[in-house]
């Protein structure tokens, strides 16, 4: 561990504790500091939205949480497991934390069903029959029954994104990270994806979302974080955030976007 900070790592996690605890995280790409000491807590079952202008480090922040990006200093605990640790068992972390990307990133040589089934079979070595059953249920859940045998190239953006969500859920994660998952979609298809995510959040899945969909954030989020230039400017429950933003930067941003 580079910098032991905050809750003692490795201590058995109980649901009363934050499921994700980010403490004073810093990250630079070259000379450019993208995260300048970011802290946030997520409780189990919460839906957290991160909003902020382009380039403020939102993607970088959530990619740190599943160790796609290594941080320079600070601490990230996921169920009390320190992510900023070279001995980190990445597989164990990624079983807990699912991620959905802006560009879907499906595997183009596999059908929708195979995309969902692959990781549990290849990575977790689970039984194929059992995985297939689960995969079909997940595709039904994201309303893609009938599309099981279509390749990503034959699906619309919204359909691909829902396959990507099902693919992540097939690993049975405790936490889902969504990085602007509707940003590449047509306005009509945005809704179908948001409905799926909202259902997940309502079922109690812990969700951390980067989004530009303000109405969605307002309806679904338990808490909203606003980032700008690598720092969290302010955070509040949605009602308070949208009605009574305190910081000038937040007000300007909301003014432009609403």
């Amino acid at each position, binding site marked *: 561990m580079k910098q032991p900070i905050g809750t003692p790592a490795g201590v058995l996690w109980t649901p009363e504790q934050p499921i994700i605890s980010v403490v004073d995280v810093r990250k630079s790409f070259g000379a450019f500091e993208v995260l300048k000491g970011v802290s946030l807590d997520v409780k189990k079952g919460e839906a957290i939205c991160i909003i902020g202008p382009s380039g403020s480090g939102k993607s970088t922040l959530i990619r740190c949480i599943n160790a796609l990006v290594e941080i320079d200093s600070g601490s990230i605990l996921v169920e009390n497991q320190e992510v900023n640790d070279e001995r980190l068992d990445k597989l164990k972390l990624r079983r807990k934390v699912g991620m959905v*990307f802006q*560009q879907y990133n499906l*595997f183009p040589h596999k059908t929708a069903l195979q995309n969902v089934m692959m*990781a549990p079979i290849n990575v977790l070595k689970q039984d194929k029959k059992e995985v297939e059953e689960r995969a079909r249920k997940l595709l039904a859940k994201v309303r893609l029954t009938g599309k099981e045998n279509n*390749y990503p*190239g034959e699906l619309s953006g919204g359909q691909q994104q829902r396959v990507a969500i099902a693919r992540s859920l097939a690993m049975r994660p405790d936490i889902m990270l969504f990085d602007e998952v509707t940003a590449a979609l047509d306005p009509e298809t945005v809704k179908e994806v948001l409905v799926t995510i909202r259902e997940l959040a309502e079922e109690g899945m812990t969700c951390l979302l980067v989004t530009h969909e303000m109405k969605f954030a307002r309806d679904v989020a338990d808490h909203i974080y606003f980032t700008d230039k690598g720092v969290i400017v302010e955070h509040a429950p949605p009602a308070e955030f949208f009605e009574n933003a305190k910081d000038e930067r937040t007000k300007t941003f909301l003014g432009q976007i609403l």
Partner: protein
Amino acid sequence: MEALAEWGRALYEATGINLTILYDQFDQSRFISGIWMTIYLSIISLFFSVIIGVVGAWAQGSPIKAVRWAINGFIVLFRNTPPLVQIFFFYFGISNLLPYVEDADGMRAPLFTNIQWAIISLSLFAGAFNIEIFRSGIEAVPKSTLEAAEALGYTRLGAYRHIVLPLAIRVCLPALNNNLVNLLKTTSLAYAIAVPELLYASKQIWTDAQNVPTMMVVLLLTYVALVGVLVWAMNAWERSMAVPGYGQGRGR
């Protein structure tokens, strides 16, 4: 068979075109075993060259500098030297440095036969090109696809095996196709170390039967047919791997 032999003799009497491989038992059997040897060399070297390509391209992405250098050195060495020189290098050069073994009759025999050396050097020759070909395919796989695999818990090797390589192969099949056709043709160089492949057998036949122009034509046509079969097989493979909306299968 007998009818073919009859026809061969009649053709010779009528036109002077002497296809000894049709009616002469001995010529026929050495010609056919020449074809088999060429097929054998091709299939075995093709197999090993693809393995070298797949493993080499993976190792080329290794975080260890020494490994990358070793692979690049290997590629430069085998790409920038003539394949005939490589075959001589192994058969006359390396072979002499290796220990000898005793064969069944208690005779001193080299560790590898000329056929084995041909396979080794042809595999390395084509393998060096295959590494580059696979690498170009790997580079065409978007980083974001790899990231998605990583986020699902795949290790580097797992992602290579299940995602990167299958995608890379689809991208680089045309180039791979070319290189494997080239490999089949290059097996004729094994002639130089007396491997009784197609060219070697044909040469023996035309020396004995004095039918050089005829055998030349036969030889050319036989290679055309062999390469034709390989290309057909590769195309069938390419079609079977086509995926709607990706690479060659786009727009179907």
